[in-house]
């Protein structure tokens, strides 16, 4: 692992020298680079709800926290997990016990050493029922974690233990093929034990905030801006170019677009729809696939969607290309499966290997609809209402789907919309026939996507329960061999897509405008851009 890291680092150095060489125009690049203040201004869009790794459960908070902290594993430029605060890891033969060595030079931003006890404390704090951590369930793979979090066990029974200051032992319930990816998540970041114990509100303000990553929090003007500066105690600080990162909190799309145009912001995401057409050919414009799927869920307990053929007929009768090209318009890709693009597997991208599980075919769809109705003994299709949460884009998509179903299948469906929280309650109670939903993977693995439709998943609102699917998923989770693991996941997806308790519509994308003054910004497929390695090359 160490070797891989070292060689990546060397490669990077090489690449950056070459790039730097390209950029120089007569002047010595070193001199020019030294005179340019390494500062960047981003837009968080809104106040981060929490900068406490145990409490954060949204990507805005995560964006900032990811720059402030570092877990045992961290993500490299390619988004792959590499060792971070740990310098070494040993895995037992049964794949259940991990022994991490914390780096000797891993330090908190106040200069104190990061210890194994800090990790143990941080993880048990996440699991403590009193903390009420929304992401605690991501730790349920650890022995005793679920019991403790649900109030049925004690902290001592949790399989996380600091053997000494620098050695952390983690015991899992069962082997987990993607534990390294999981460990890059902010829920697994350490917190400074002595600080958090003495001040429960340590993460509320910049003053007194201590972190262990590339940056430290220097200013937090609530609802206005967050400023972080390079952490001089960070063990890998030489790899960090950007000295200072500022997040403004501008929520209005037109406003932040104009702030980008006047240079008040260096990078913006999610352009206003009318600006996308205008910026499409701009070199600063960038569309990145986003690790999520837009879909319509069926309630398989309600007519007519108790019939699998009718579900499939609906899926085949929708023109996805028309939706992404005429409505969403920002580089989304039509979806014919559940897991989005972006997972690198030994055989290539998971989605490309898996391919499409159905095709759009009006003739076939009509035939399936007739067959389905015959099976159920219906001469007329029961009335269908499609619900969506109140938003302009959802409305447009629902109307397009309504029109497509009418034209292609001769089925007239009704539309209804509800305000967001009401909508969540309605769908949670399975009080729908067909409902729109989106799902974004918190880390890039097919598991976090496919888990959505597990029989006991609280997310699964469709009432679809399939033992074969659940078994394949359980098998995939404990499979140690990566290749076999992905094969099992493909099989599971196939089962899901054969039964189709939902219609995939498109895979999300994220669009950005980035000032040409910056190089080296990384755009992960399920997070906002990472500027740890970014470099400002012009004033």
């Amino acid at each position: 692992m160490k070797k891989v890291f070292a060689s990546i680092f060397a490669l990077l150095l090489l690449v950056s020298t070459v790039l730097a060489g390209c950029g120089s125009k007569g002047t010595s690049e070193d001199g020019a680079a030294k005179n340019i203040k390494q500062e960047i201004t981003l837009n968080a869009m809104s106040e981060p709800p929490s900068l406490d790794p145990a409490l954060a459960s949204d990507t805005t908070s995560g964006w900032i926290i990811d720059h402030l902290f570092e877990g045992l594993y961290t993500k490299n430029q390619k988004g792959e997990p590499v060792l971070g605060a740990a310098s070494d890891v040993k895995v037992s033969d049964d794949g259940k016990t991990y022994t991490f060595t914390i780096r000797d030079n891993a330090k908190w931003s106040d200069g104190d050493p990061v210890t194994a006890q800090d990790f143990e404390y941080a993880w048990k704090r996440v699991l403590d029922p009193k903390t009420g951590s929304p992401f605690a369930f991501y730790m349920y793979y650890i022995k005793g974690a679920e019991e403790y979090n649900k109030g049925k066990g004690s902290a001592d029974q949790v399989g996380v233990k600091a053997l000494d200051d620098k050695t952390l032992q983690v015991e899992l319930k069962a082997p987990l093929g993607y534990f390294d990816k999981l460990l890059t998540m902010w829920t697994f970041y350490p917190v400074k034990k002595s600080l958090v114990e003495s001040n429960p509100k340590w993460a509320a303000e910049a003053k007194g905030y201590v972190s262990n990553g590339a940056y430290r929090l220097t200013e937090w003007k609530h609802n206005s801006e967050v400023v972080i500066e390079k952490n001089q105690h960070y063990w890998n600080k030489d790899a960090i170019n950007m000295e200072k990162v500022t997040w403004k909190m501008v929520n209005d799309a037109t406003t932040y677009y104009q702030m980008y145009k006047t240079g008040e912001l260096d990078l913006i995401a999610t352009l206003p729809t009318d600006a996308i057409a205008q910026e499409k050919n701009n070199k600063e414009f960038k569309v990145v696939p986003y690790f999520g799927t837009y879909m319509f869920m069926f309630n398989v307990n309600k007519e007519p969607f108790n019939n699998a053929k009718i579900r499939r007929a609906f899926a085949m009768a929708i023109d996805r290309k028309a939706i992404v090209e005429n409505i969403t318009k920002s580089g989304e890709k039509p979806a014919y499966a559940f897991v989005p693009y972006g997972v690198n597997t030994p055989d290539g991208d998971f989605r490309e290997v898996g391919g499409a599980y159905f095709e759009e075919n009006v003739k076939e769809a009509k035939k399936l609809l007739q067959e389905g109705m015959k099976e159920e003994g219906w001469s007329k299709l029961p009335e269908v209402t499609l619900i969506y949460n109140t938003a302009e884009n959802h409305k447009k998509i629902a109307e397009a789907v309504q029109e497509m179903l009418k034209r292609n299948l001769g089925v007239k469906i009704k539309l209804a919309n509800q305000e967001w929280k009401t909508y969540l309650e309605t769908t949670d109670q399975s009080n729908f026939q067909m409902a729109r939903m989106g799902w974004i993977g918190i880390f890039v693995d097919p598991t976090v996507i496919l888990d959505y439709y597990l029989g006991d998943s609280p997310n699964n609102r469709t009432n679809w329960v399939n033992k074969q699917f659940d078994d394949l998923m359980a098998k995939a989770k404990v499979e140690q061999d990566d290749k076999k693991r992905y094969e099992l996941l493909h099989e599971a997806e196939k089962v899901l897509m054969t039964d189709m308790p939902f219609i995939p519509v498109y895979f999300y994308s994220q669009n950005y405008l980035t000032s040409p003054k910056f190089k080296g910004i990384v755009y992960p497929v399920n997070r906002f851009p990472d500027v740890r390695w970014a470099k400002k090359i012009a004033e």
Partner: protein
Amino acid sequence: MYIVKRLLTMIVTIWLIATLTFIIMKSIPGDPFASDANVLPEEVLQNIRAKYNLDKPLPVQYALYMKNLLTFDLGPSIQSETRDVNTLIADGFPVSAVLGLQSLVIALLFGILLGIIAALNHNRLLDHVAMFLAIIGISVPSFILAPLLIKYFAVEWKLLPVASWGTWAHSILPSIALATTPMAVIARFMRSSMLEVMRQNYIKTAEAKGLSPAAIVIKHGIRNAILPVITFIGPLFAVLITGTFVIEKIFAIPGLGKYFVDSIFNRDYPVILGTTVFFSTILVITLFLVDISYRLIDPRIKLTSRGD
């Protein structure tokens, strides 16, 4: 006596508002912890609910809330994990207040001026120009005006920053955007009130006495004509200083206005109650001050409660 009675009524009013808000807010469907991103296991949800006392029966929640309210503790915010409602208000209110006061001054100054000019030039060109401006001010909503101001003053002419908060320059465009509609309303109020006053006999008497036109307008005209405007600026003051959602969103201002709307979408119960109670307190105090100011402006008005 009047003041004591008035104060008691104010307290009862605020209590009634808090109680009604509590009932209405709890009857909207939806859960503050519901999310599409992660539907939490029931046990975890219970832990989180317990943190905010939401696991207790409604009457107990109500009693706890009222008890805290008596000590001016508005409770924790659900949305901002580590911060409480008192801090949210303490941070946001000064910002909204500065912005609100600035726009109130603009609205009053220009509104009254436009109204007077229009009234004194009744049915002449200046009157038509002033009222044309007023109609535009009323009919162009701030969410149209604000982007236009940004487009020209910030993007095209680069005179002022687009948005965000920090220096006085940041506050100019939002103050103007916020002031326009009230300014137009004040101008129309002032005009009709002024026209009414200028027809009165005492104005004719003043003219007959040989007072200069300026003295007539200032001493007799404005003083009498301004009463309806004061009635209007009472509630306006309360609205402006507690922040407005649209302007704060467009200009990225860290004020209080967003909480009034966001808290409802998020079902952030303590914030819904906190901001409502805070706003109604400011409103009843302002209305009280308006009543007192009537008396100062027009000594003929007596402050009495009914039955006294």
